Every structure is written in C-alpha cells, then in structure tokens.
C-alpha cells in the first residue's frame, strides 16, 4: 500500500519517503513512507518491533536513514542530529528528555533564551513572569521557581510540552504521552493538542490506547515488522480493523488451524486452581487483574502491547511491587510477594526479555540451568555436582538443547537454545505454574515448534501454564482459555469456541462497557467528543518499542 495520495490540497509538512534503517541483524525500517500535514494529529501505531521508535528517531534527527529521505515542506532535508531537527521545528516530548531536573521550572522553560537585564545577567523577575505566561494555557498552576524534579511526572511533561511549543514548533512528537498521567491531566493534554492543531501544528501521537487514538487523532499510520501497512483517515477504520492491521491478522485470511505445533485442548487434572491471581493492581500499570489457571490448563493472556500482559506475569512472579492484590498458588496465598517466595511456591516465569532478564551469558549452560534449582541440588549449602550433571543432562536431552557440551557459555548459543536453557532452568525447580512471556519470540522456526510442543506436553503433565504471546495464532491454538487485557484491566475472557483470532481481536477492539467487563473498565468517550471523561484510561506500562 502506498501513502494515500488522493487529492491533497496542502503539501505535507514533513514527509518520510521510502526510509530504510538497518541495525545489525535487523531491518528496522523497510521502505517506510510517512506524511504529516499541518494541523493534524496523526496516530502512529504498531506492535513490538514494528519500527515506531526507529521512525520517530529518524524524524527527530537521532538516526540517519540508510536509504530514502525526509522532505520538509517538499524540500529534501538531511538532519545531522536532533539539534537540526529541532531547529526545523520538530520537537519530541519524552518524559525525561531535554529538561534539567535540578533547575527550576522557569529556567527549564526558557533555557537558553532567558530574559537578561542591562548587566547581561538573568532577569529573574521577568523570567518567572514569562514562565507563568507560558504555562498558563496548560492548566498547570505551580510555583515556577520550584526545581522541576520536585513536580509530578504529569507536570514535568506539560513543562516539556510548553517548552517545545514555545520554541516555534511545527511538529510535536508525543511518544506514549499519557502513560503516567492522571485522568485530569490527560484531559488537559487533549485540550492542548486541540489548540496545537488549531494553530496549524502537526502532532504525531504514539499510543497503544485505542480510545485515545480515536478521540484525539484524525489520521493513522500502521507499522508492522518495519513496513508501513496502512495510512489514512482514522474515521475510515473501525477499531476491529485497526487491531487486525496492527496484529497482522487479516480477518479474511485467518489461516486454518494446525499451523502451530499445539494440539489444542488439554485434560484438566483437577478443579482446584493451581494459580489464582486476584485483583492485581499497580498504579498506571494494572487495574484489578484477576486470572485463574487450573492444573493442566493453558491460559492465554491476550491484548495489545502495553495492555499489562507482562506486568501481570511479573506481578504473579513477585517481580513487580503491587499496590493491591493477592496471588494464591495451589490454595496457599503468597505471604510476601518476592521472586524468592514465588519460586519456592512453585511459580516459574520465563521473562520476555531473554537477554536482559533471563540468561547469565558468561556462565555455562550447566550453571544457567542449575541456577534456580540450587537449593534442591545441594545439601547444607554444598552443591552436588553429580546431581547437577544428571539433571542438566536430562533436560539437555529432553529439550534437545544444541551445544558443544554442557560447559559451553550460554551467551554463545542461538536464541532458541537460550530459550530452552531458560525453560530447563525453571523445569528443574519442578514448578506448579509456568508463566511464559513471549516464549517463541525471536527464535527460529524449528525451535519455535519444539517449544510449542513442549508447552503442550507440560500442560498434559499437569502444569498450569499462563501463555503470553503477541502471535495471535500461537495464542489461540496454544490456549484453552484466553483472558484479554486492555489498558491494564481484564477486558474479557474467551472460552471454548470463543477462543479464536477474531474473538481475541474483537475483545481487544471492543468499546469498553463498564458494567459488562470483568475488571473496572476505564471510561470512554466517543471519538471527537470533547467532554471530560469520568475515568479516563489509566494503566499503561513503560512498554516501548524494542528496536
């Protein structure tokens, strides 16, 4: 698909044409075109690894494209760095970027263009007055002499926005601007965006919250796997269509079952849940999520990026401090939610970020596998090498880990084999519940099939499995039941025949109806409606693109 070239009166304010950006081993952007018109709010959406972050960095001068280029009002430009982009009027608002936390709000707002008195010193009184004037339209009423650091995150973001706009911005890039804002602040932000548009400033709006997109944005560009898959007016899309574009599952061509290695349903060994998570709540991230897993059951956790899937798994594993909620393993509540206690209770979590949170790259396969099960493989703190060798040998054979020997460093293995090592690490602890966060991401097809078969087998043996996957097909075929999350709350649960790709997408895309949903669903307004929301969507993790 090409950018909608249908009768456009005005030339795009800024345009990326056929942009290619390569990183070692990854093609982050593969000929992406993107146009931004004056006075529009343009939603940029896509799942993990779609290339959003990379595209934003190209637009803001952080990266230089390997091929293709940028045009500013029709003129080709090449930004040498973020500074050039800023001078061209392209301002990016990230929470932390570009501000000096220890300086006062006023100094931050007018950094580099402070009013001076006759001696060439900063005229503090004028500075503070000017700062107050600048902030007034943003609904922020604070003492501008306070250090920025002492303000709330929302206020800091407003300061960043006010500064960006006051420096003659033509394009404002907002990456997940509402992820740490209170509902009232979100409303203010939306008001500001309307003002910006009225002044002819274009806004690039990146968010995973569909409600927000439909309220704020007029056009949308969908990226997937480094390619532009759709661009056009947002009003032409319904939510379901948008979700299917993001996830890459065309409604018409959902393939027949059987492409993955999952066999489908499992016998349930018993009715006492092996895992019960009740009302998991954490500010801005989780909003009363409850999930139940029975022995022998694979429960899928569906939802878009940033819907709280990983956070739910982490919370269950004791790796995310909670404001409220309990985790019950096989009838026994976890007293003190730490990873050590969760592990002891029989919870095993395969983290999404294998490199940063999973493997210990410099240690051998053997050491990595034995790591979590050490208490069981030792007596009085002294490890039994024979027992470790035996268990490591067993798992290397069972999971078919390909390596020169069990003493090879894990950092040298392929992604698929690293993932198997991590699975072995957890299986060695003889867990009751397996939390699998994207277990097959970034591993080759063969290993993927093996991991899927293994998940199946483990469930058959009576383990409870919570499966998180952005691959809808994998989710639907692997899971007996799917709990769909949206904005950190449970949006619905699919059982039996409902477990289908359409079903999951429909649940993700559904307009939240407060009484029907399982969790306290966030309030919502129809697109374009400017009335303040009673309870705007609140939860969102710091889930950012990975590329």
């Amino acid at each position, binding site marked *: 698909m090409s950018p909608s070239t249908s009768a456009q009166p005005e030339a795009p304010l800024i345009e990326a044409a056929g942009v290619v950006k390569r990183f070692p081993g990854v093609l982050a952007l593969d000929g992406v075109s993107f146009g931004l018109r004056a006075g529009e709010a343009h939603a940029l959406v896509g799942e993990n690894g779609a290339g959003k972050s990379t595209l934003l960095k190209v637009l803001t001068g952080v990266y230089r494209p390997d091929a293709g280029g940028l045009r500013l009002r029709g003129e080709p430009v090449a930004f040498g760095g973020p500074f050039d982009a800023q001078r061209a009027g392209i301002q990016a608002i990230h929470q932390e970027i570009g501000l000096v936390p220890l300086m006062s709000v006023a100094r931050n707002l007018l950094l580099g263009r402070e009013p001076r008195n006759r001696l060439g010193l900063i005229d503090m009184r004028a500075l503070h007055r000017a700062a107050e004037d600048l902030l007034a339209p943003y609904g922020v009423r604070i003492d501008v002499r306070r250090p920025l650091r002492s303000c709330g995150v929302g206020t800091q973001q407003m300061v960043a926005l006010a500064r960006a706009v006051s420096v003659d911005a033509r394009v404002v890039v907002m990456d997940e601007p509402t992820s740490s804002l209170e509902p009232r602040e979100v409303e203010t932000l939306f008001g500001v965006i309307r003002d910006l548009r009225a002044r002819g400033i274009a806004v690039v709006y990146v968010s995973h919250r569909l409600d927000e997109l439909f309220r704020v944005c007029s056009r949308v560009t969908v990226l997937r796997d480094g390619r532009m898959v759709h661009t056009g007016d947002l009003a032409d899309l319904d939510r379901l269509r948008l979700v299917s574009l993001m996830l890459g599952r065309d409604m018409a061509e959902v393939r027949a079952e059987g492409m993955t290695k999952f066999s489908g349903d499992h016998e349930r060994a018993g009715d006492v849940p092996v895992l019960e998570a009740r009302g998991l709540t954490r500010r801005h991230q989780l909003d009363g999520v409850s999930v139940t897993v029975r022995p022998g059951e694979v429960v899928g956790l569906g939802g878009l990026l940033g819907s709280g899937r990983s956070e739910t798994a982490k919370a269950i594993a004791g790796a995310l401090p909670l404001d409220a909620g309990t985790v019950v393993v096989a009838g026994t509540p976890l007293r003190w939610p730490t990873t050590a206690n969760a592990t002891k209770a029989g919870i095993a979590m395969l983290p999404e970020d294998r490199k940063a949170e999973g493997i*210990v790259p*410099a*240690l051998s396969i053997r050491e990595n596998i*034995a790591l*979590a099960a*050490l208490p069981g493989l030792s007596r009085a703190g002294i490890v039994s090498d024979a027992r470790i060798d035996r268990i490591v040998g067993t798992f290397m054979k069972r999971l078919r880990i390909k390596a020169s020997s069990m003493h090879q460093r894990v950092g040298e293995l392929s992604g698929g084999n690293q993932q198997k090592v991590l699975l072995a690490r957890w299986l060695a602890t003889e867990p009751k519940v397996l939390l699998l966060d994207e277990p097959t991401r970034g591993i080759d097809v063969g290993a993927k099939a093996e991991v899927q078969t293994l998940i199946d087998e483990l469930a058959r043996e009576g383990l409870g499995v919570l499966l998180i996957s952005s691959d809808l097909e994998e989710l639907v075929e692997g899971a007996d039941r799917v709990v769909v999350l949206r904005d950190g709350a449970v949006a619905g649960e699919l059982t039996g025949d409902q477990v289908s790709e359409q079903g999951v997408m429909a649940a993700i895309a559904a307009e939240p109806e407060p009484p029907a949903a399982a969790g306290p669903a966030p309030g919502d307004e129809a697109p374009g409606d400017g009335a303040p929301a009673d309870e705007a969507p609140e939860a969102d993790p710091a889930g950012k693109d990975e590329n």
Partner: protein
Amino acid sequence: MAEVTASPWAGLDRARVLAWLQDYGVYLAVAVLLVFNAFFTPHFLEVDNFRNQLVQVTPVLIVSLGMALVIGTEGIDLSVGSVMSMAAAMIALYLGYGLVPAVLMALLAGAVSGLAGGSLVAFVGVQPIVATLALLVGLRGLANVFVPQLEDFRDPALLSLGGDSVLGVPYVVLVAAAVVAVVGFLVRRTTFGRRLVAIGGNRRASELSGLPVKRVLLLVYMLSGVLAAVAGILSTARIQAADPTSLGLLMELSAITAVVVGGTPLTGGRVRVAGTVMGALLMQLLASTLTKHDLPSSGTQMVQAAIILVAVYAARERMTR
C-alpha cells in the same frame, strides 16, 4: 614455509590470544619472573627467601581473595585497608584480655563493617564504590580515635602468631593457605558461590530466578570485611604493633590489582581464586625483583601500572569481542 614469516601472529585468532592472556597470562608472568630470578638474583633459590616472600605477600593475598568475591558480584570494596587498621585497633584495645578475645573482636569489627557496606549496597542501593569509599574514610578515622598513635606490644602469644612456624612454614602462611582453600571451596562447591557469580553475571535475571540476591550481596561484603580483618590481625602480629594510621594504606589498590591481573573481570560474573593468588604473588615477586636489582621504587610502580593496563586491556577486548 618462508612466506609464513610475514607475521607470526597471522594464523592466531586475536581474541583467543587475549582470552588466553587473561586466563593464564599471570601464570606465565610468574614463571618468567621465577626463572629470571633463579638465574640473576643471588640467594633467590634459598628457602629463607621463599619463606620471606610468602610471609610478605600474605596480607595482600588474603585481602585479594575477599576482593575477588566482591568483584565477582560486579562490586568493589575500597574499605579493606581501613578495616585492617580497625582490626589493629581492636587488637590494641583488647589484647589485655588475651589473644583470642582480641582476635575475635577484630574479626567482629571486620564483619560489622562488611555488614554496613553490604547493607548500603544490597538494601539501600548505594553504588559499591561509594558505599565502601565512605567506609574507607570513616573506619580509619574511627580506628585513629580508638588508638591515636602507634602502640607496640610485648605479648608472647601474639609474637608467636606473627613469627613462629610449624615444620618451617610460618603460621601466617598457613592461615593464608587455609583462606585460599576456604574461598576456593566456597566458589566451586557451594550454592553461595554459584549464586554470587550469577548475580555478577546478570543481577536482574538472578532476581527473577528467585535467588536471594540481597542476602548473597550482604554475605559477600561481610566476608570481604572479615578477610581484611584477618589480614590486619596477621600484619599486627608480624610487626608487633598496632599502627592504625598507616596499616593497610592503599591496600585496596594492591588487592584490586592482584584480582584484575589474576584474570577476574571487573565486570563481574567470574571469580578466579587461583588466578588471584597468582596475581598477588606476581606483584610481590615483581616488587622484590626490582628492589633487589636496585631499581628505584618509582620504577616498580611504573611496571605495575603497565601490567595492570595489559590485564585490563585483555579483559576489555575480550568483553567487546
């Protein structure tokens, strides 16, 4: 065949050479120095000389082993020299009650200061270099408050600990050998050792795997403190005096040098016990060789600096491979 002489290194993988150098370079260097001394240093091969060298290396060696554990967790312990002075002060204060109470108090002081540093690192989240720097400054000050000036003893038990031998092996060397054995056992055979290395290799992954990360860190710093106290006790026994002002000065740097030269990377995730022993021996041999051949101490320091640079270079190149 003649064409191959263009570069003798051409056939060798550079990364593998560096890896080998990091792992075994220290053994090679020690061997070279031994051979050199055997030929060119008079009296080098005499038993007395060996005994002397070993006695002299003991404090650094013991402190280095604790340091190696801390560095294995991606940390560092700058407080070791001051802990030594604190141990000396404890000996001075409690020797009146007998040697055993005095030694126990000194060890306790080491454990407590390690507990303080470890708590700051594990629970408060202070960077190791900052937490132990605070102890480096504070502990020596405290030791000086307890024992303001050099205090010498005439205690027969202490004299015996510092000077006597069994079967020709001085007690202090025996203690050092025992420490080497214990630390080696800890690293190789215990859950504590495995966890320590995993935490240094990837702390987040260790946490998510349910490891008691904070407990392990606390223990590591306590061990380092206790070992530094042991070194302080032995040094005090050897010189028969408590000298909190200068005992253990710059010991942290000697220890870090021995650890790094011995092949333990500063980035953590690995502890080389034998390598650390060799690293300490190398620095000792180097100093004595240069002294005996009438090179000024400034020359010694520059050669030491060169060796550290080579060790760090080998380690870094290996990381970025």
